[in-house]
């Protein structure tokens, strides 16, 4: 038997979240799109805000600083995604096998994800110190006669940020891989063993194909994370040297906030949402088709 309930009560339960989501998610999203076609500034303009069509987009796409930020962000993703995924997969495979103290090592391996990013940044700044930080002392021990200005060199700054970021967030991918590994049926390994496959052959014949969906998921979420790079470069390098670590998010903040060009910054935000949103939709489509 069905009992009718007054619709007002369910709307009451729904109202707080709905109002907040409209005000702080949908409205700013709509504003982003609208403002990107205007010359809105943060401080009210002396002349009223005007619609400027695609001027902001045209200006962004011809701004070398935008393309530099785009290239830097893509470069960061290109370096960090394969490195971090391979590292996380190797650690997950290790921690999925049985050996003494495994659960202790698992807990330890998650710790970087618990360490606030600003704290990780401070620790690694000490390692990258010039002229006698840990990394410089290591290369000195290998015979280098001078030091490397890790964070101050256009060549090394991004790889240095990559190493730090991989350390800080690898447990996220590792946990996803661990979950994926546990979904692979045991019988497949037994069958491979009966066929005489060694550990390495089992990995390529059973483990890696069994992780296909996990791999797609992790590759795309890691790429999306990489495109959001901001805190590390904002604190450690301020986007420098000579813009070599400036990222899309940082470029957006510089334009829309520091320079107070809200319309222009909104257009950058729209481009950013399009890139990240396309990756996220791609992920949904690919994963759903499995």
């Amino acid at each position: 038997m069905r009992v009718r309930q007054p619709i007002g009560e369910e709307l009451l339960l729904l109202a707080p979240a709905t109002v907040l989501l409209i005000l702080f998610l949908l409205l700013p999203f709509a504003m982003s799109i609208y403002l990107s076609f205007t010359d809105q500034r943060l401080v009210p303009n002396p002349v009223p805000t005007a619609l400027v069509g695609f001027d902001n987009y045209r200006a962004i796409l011809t701004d070398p600083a935008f393309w530099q930020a785009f290239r830097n962000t893509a470069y960061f993703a290109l370096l960090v995604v394969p490195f971090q995924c391979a590292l996380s997969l190797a650690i997950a495979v290790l921690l999925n096998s049985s050996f003494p103290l495994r659960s202790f090592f698992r807990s330890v391996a998650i710790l970087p994800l618990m360490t606030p990013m600003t704290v990780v940044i401070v620790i690694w700044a000490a390692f990258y110190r010039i002229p006698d930080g840990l990394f410089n002392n290591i290369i000195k021990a290998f015979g280098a006669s001078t030091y490397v200005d890790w964070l101050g060199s256009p060549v090394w700054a991004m790889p240095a940020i990559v190493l730090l970021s991989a350390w800080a967030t690898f447990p996220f991918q590792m946990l996803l891989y661990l979950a994926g590994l546990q979904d692979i049926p045991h019988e497949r390994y037994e069958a491979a063993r009966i066929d005489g496959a060694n550990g390495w052959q089992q990995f390529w014949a059973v483990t890696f194909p069994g992780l296909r969906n996990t791999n797609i998921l992790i590759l795309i979420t890691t790429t999306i994370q990489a495109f959001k790079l901001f805190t590390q470069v904002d604190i450690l390098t301020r986007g420098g040297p000579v813009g070599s670590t400036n990222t899309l998010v940082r470029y957006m903040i510089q334009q829309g906030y520091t320079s107070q060009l809200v319309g222009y910054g909104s257009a950058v935000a729209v481009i950013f949402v399009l890139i990240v949103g396309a990756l996220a939709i791609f992920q949904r489509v690919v994963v759903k088709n499995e």
Partner: protein
Amino acid sequence: MNVVRLILGVLLALLVLGPLMMMISVSLNPDEAAINSILGTAKAFIPTALSTQNYQEVINDPYQPFVRYLFNTLFVTVCTVGLGVMVNSSAAFALAWGQGAYRKVYLAIIIAVFVIPGEGLLIPLILMMSRLGWLDTYQVQIVPFIASAFSVFLFYQFFSKLPAELIEAARIDGAHLPTIFLKIGLPLSKPVIATTAILGFLDMWNSYLWPSLVTRGVEFRPLSVAMAAFFSSQQSYWGNVTAFAVLMALPVIIVFLIFQRWFVASVVGSGVKG
């Protein structure tokens, strides 16, 4: 084979614990000159002194009121996470057990807005906040982040799997939907509450970009922004900087050790669904 794995495990532990050990051992050393001479060497990883002097300096620094920052972060985190659990779970319950025909569309919108990255909303949000006069307050760090489409979706998935008989029985007894939610739905949803609370706690505790844009002075500034400012102004005082860092990381690590099991489940859930 076990020995090889054990060695690899120890290597992994060194790689993870090494940087954290360095932070702790430097923070316990009161002698800045000594720190500077050993910072890049193996000696920096093993405590050579056990002094709380750096911690006292950080906590008592009149220009960088650590306790104030800690309170700010705690207050903002607790309010956002607590209100978030209430607001998101009640909305999800209405979506799961309401009778309106709009619910399918609503849910589709919730799932669609997952793809919008928060960073893309910052510029118009700042404009809104400055028009509201909310810059440099607590509410500017709390209110925009209470509702979360992702949390609503997680709660919805959980509530929609509750047995229909349970809800119908309560209805027949004359209970109204809000009562059913409070008496049956909410108490049953502890695992989802834990998941969203843990993810929300981490997010808020670590959040840097937004508070760095909307807080000005020390009054409302959270730990993360203060840490960055402290680091750039005191870069050569590694003892104090690392003491600050330890004090900021400690609460998260304690929470992690208590809720480890739920934490692992929530990260996997967020990765798979988000």
